[in-house]
């Protein structure tokens, strides 16, 4: 099935803590292997959309279908299992375990994945780090630069060979040069492996590399 994990979002409503809708999206569809940028000012709902697409949010109605799987119909454990099998995520502030080295961070997935795939995850994590020019034999990531840390995080997101890559402001904490390296890594890997890549960002250099860009404002799609 070539279209196995294409994305279809319909009538999406995300309720906030106060039982009021904080984000709505009538319709969005994305073929497998394409790249999408989500632009918008702070508070526009970019992070909410990324989290909703990852199945990280409760109180979501409508439909978020990745291929045959409708995330809104799954329970918490089912969404976790879906993420483990299909989704890689990158965050603005990296969220590494500082006390672990780059290889352990990038391969953190191996700690809870099935025994038979552990070795594979670890080797792939190390190969990704090597390709990014990062040494994996450090015992801590605390002393790495911001750009290096984010690239470790990208390697972590890719180590489990996800079909879907979701990135929330991946370059916002980085200076230009480091940001460009991270953009290069993200886009190159997504294209090469035919991943679907969705990026929420302010960074025009990053958005320019996407196939499509949608714009959010006030928790809804802004008029094009």
């Amino acid at each position, binding site marked *: 099935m070539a279209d196995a994990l294409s994305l279809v979002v319909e009538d999406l409503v995300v309720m906030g803590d106060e039982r009021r809708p904080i984000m709505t999206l009538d319709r969005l569809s994305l073929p497998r292997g394409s790249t999408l940028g989500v632009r918008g000012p702070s508070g526009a709902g970019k*992070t909410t959309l990324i*989290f909703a697409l*990852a199945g*990280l*949010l*409760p109180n979501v109605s409508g439909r978020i279908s990745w291929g045959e799987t409708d995330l809104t119909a799954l329970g*918490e*454990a089912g969404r*976790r*299992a*879906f*993420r*483990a*099998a299909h*989704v890689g*995520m990158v*965050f603005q502030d990296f*969220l590494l*375990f*500082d*006390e*672990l080295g780059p290889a*352990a961070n990038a391969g*953190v*997935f*191996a*700690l*809870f994945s*099935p*025994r038979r795939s*552990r070795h594979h995850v670890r080797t792939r994590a190390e190969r990704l780090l090597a390709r990014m020019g990062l040494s994996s034999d450090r015992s801590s990531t605390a002393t790495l630069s911001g750009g290096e840390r984010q690239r470790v995080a990208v390697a*972590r997101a890719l180590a489990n060979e996800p079909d879907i890559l979701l990135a929330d402001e991946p370059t916002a904490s980085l200076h230009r040069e480091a940001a460009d390296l991270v953009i290069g890594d993200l886009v190159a890997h997504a294209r090469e492996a035919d991943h679907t890549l969705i990026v929420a960002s302010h960074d025009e250099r990053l958005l320019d590399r996407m196939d499509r860009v949608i714009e959010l404002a006030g928790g809804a799609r802004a008029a094009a």
Partner: protein
Amino acid sequence: MASLWYGLPAWAQDTLLGLALLAPLILIALVLLPGHRPWPLAYALIRRHWGVSSIFVILIALSVALGTGLLAQERAIRSATARAADPFDLVVTAPGSELTALFATVFLRASDMGLIGGDVLEELSSDKRVALAAPLGFGDSVGDAPIVGTTADLVYHLTGGALEGRIWASAFEAVVGSDVAVEMGAHLEPAHGVGEAADDHAHDAAEFTVVGRMEPSGTPWDRAILVPIEAVWQVHGLADGHREADQVGPPFVPELVPGMPAIVVAANSLGGAYSLRAAFTRDGETMAFFPGTVLAQLYGVMGDVRGAMSIMALVSQGLVVGGVLCGLAIVARLFRRQLALLAALGAPARFVVSVMWLHSVMHLFAGVVLGLLSGQIAAGLLSSIVSRQTGLDLSAELGGAELLAVAGFLGLASLAALLPALVTPPRHPAHDLR
């Protein structure tokens, strides 16, 4: 069922009991851990708050050390005192406090005791039920070492004949305990009294020559100087129990015996010992008692104290663990984002809980191991102090009781360690990720 249990050897009972006490820990581990490897993350979280973790571990270690040290120390005192009392089947003294008589004879603690006459010694010596009847005479000392006047038979009884040098052949020769710091052949001048109250010049004319040394026994007798009881009497200007000069040892002439505070008796049989005790318990004349029985009564009292102290130690352990787990629950809030990240990566909830639980349990284990070690060291230090004061050879070592107590502690605490894990992740990961 009960007969099956009592049919098991002690080690098997202890092992099964230990496993039962550890059951919560084992069950939780079996539910949480299979298929996952949470250790590296739990360890990483400990390293993040290294200082706080160290303090938690030290607190747990101190509470465990207190509990186990106490148990070990109490058992060491019991076994050492029982060993010391072992050679003394039956003791006959003037009527008074059995406890005072026990401390004076078995533990050689100086105390004022009434005297019994030569007729009692004569009667005992000629009794068929008696294997040994040895008089004891106290009151003098050399430095810190008490001088005990007795007969050569008692030296054989205590040592089984294992003696460096030889037994005395005349009244002013002495056999010393293994801890008495004098050379063979040395000359000892006795002082009247023991310790601070001793009068160094009361017996200026007397002098003992050391001719033998006993093997170490781990009892207060290791620091005693044993001399013929005739010498003790002579030094005090009394008759020495014999018509002829220079005779040493039995038989004594009853009317020439000035009296002695105690007679150590060994019976030919257990039944004999009981009937001797009955026979020599005479109102206003003599008192006969088994040192072992008096000690057992003493252990009863000690057991009550130990029970109370064990409960206090247990309560303090409970409080410490409660406090530490509260602290860990608060620390856990500091790495909520890391835990939310695991959820975002798709880690099952069981894995996240197991990281938190292991984080707590690693503190507990480190604390328990450190606590057992320091409890052992503390009990050792305490033992050496008590040994120095009493002459009892205390060796406080960890035994089954302490390990079982620790197993119970770990079992309950590992159950309680689920709390920080269960309290921490209720919020939705998306909250913590922002």
